[in-house]
């Protein structure tokens, strides 16, 4: 869109901040949970914070902390980290052509900040603008990083004083956020079918406890969407 391309740089930076804000708010309870659980299973406050500062991957961190609490070994923890994070390979592949040619420090920073949330808002913005907005990616990623680390800190400070935080149904915040991101962007029938197929597979694989159900159900939807997209040419 030509009007979008004329957007001044500052408004893209502001948009990056405001677009990631609802997703950052939805992740606050998870950060608190992650920090307080880490303390509860015996990590030091510094270790608990370092996990958010360096690993910066909510699902992988929560699973590592839970496994530590259950007495899981190093191999189990690293294995689950790899499996849970493997979806990021797809994000990295999706942004590959845009990352090529960037200076090393930009590529590394972009990779470090590449979460589900940053990927989702940046991919939306890229489609809207027609080009890859690097500033937008870095600012939305950094905003999310700051809020994730502050909410982990809150959990570390609160420590054990939050009873049954896990049972409150916090995962709904994640679901609501992703629904609000996906639904408005379904603008063709291949995308609609791909999304429906992914949803059905995800529920089915989840019930059948299929290993790596998340990645598998996303891939099935992607293949179906791609095939329909080809046919409609």
């Amino acid at each position: 869109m030509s009007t979008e391309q004329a957007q001044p740089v500052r408004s893209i930076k502001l948009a990056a901040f405001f677009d990631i804000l609802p997703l950052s708010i939805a992740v606050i309870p998870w950060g608190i949970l992650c920090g307080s659980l880490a303390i509860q299973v015996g990590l030091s406050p510094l270790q608990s914070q370092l996990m958010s500062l360096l690993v910066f991957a909510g699902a992988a961190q929560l699973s590592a902390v839970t496994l530590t609490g259950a007495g899981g070994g190093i191999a189990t923890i690293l294995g689950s980290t790899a499996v849970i994070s493997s979806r990021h390979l797809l994000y990295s592949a999706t942004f590959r052509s845009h990352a090529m040619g960037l200076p090393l420090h930009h590529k590394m920073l972009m990779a470090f900040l590449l979460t589900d949330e940053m990927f989702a808002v940046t991919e939306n913005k890229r489609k809207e603008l027609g080009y890859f907005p690097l500033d937008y990616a870095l600012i939305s990623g950094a905003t999310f990083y700051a809020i994730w680390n502050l909410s982990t800190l809150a959990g570390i400070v609160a420590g054990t004083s939050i009873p049954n935080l896990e049972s409150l149904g916090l995962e709904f915040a994640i679901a609501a956020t992703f629904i609000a991101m996906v639904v408005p962007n379904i603008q063709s029938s291949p995308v609609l079918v791909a999304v429906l197929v992914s949803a059905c597979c995800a529920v089915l694989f989840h019930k059948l406890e299929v290993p790596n159900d998340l990645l598998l159900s996303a891939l099935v939807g992607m293949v179906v969407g791609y095939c329909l997209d080809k046919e409609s040419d």
Partner: protein
Amino acid sequence: MSYDLIFLMALITFFMRYAFFMEKLPVKLDMRVQRFLSFTAPCILTAMAAPIVFGEVTFNTHDLTNPFLLGGILAIVLSLLVKNTLIVVLASMGAFFLLKTLL
């Protein structure tokens, strides 16, 4: 948990995010692959959200008091009507916690 383990976890997550940014990686993503990858965002986000909303569906009257299902459907409907992500997220979370308390 040791510091080493935290650093190893950090290395793994970073590698997954950086892998395809490596110029030397001997793969070329042509237009077909790029078109395939354009389905990544909607499919992965959906695959994460769907089991949370529909995971406990039982196809009987229990569904009428399931805050995850009702809140999820509300979020879908609101997303179709309202363009603002923040409003959709806050309204459906508010409805979810209200339903959870009432039902």
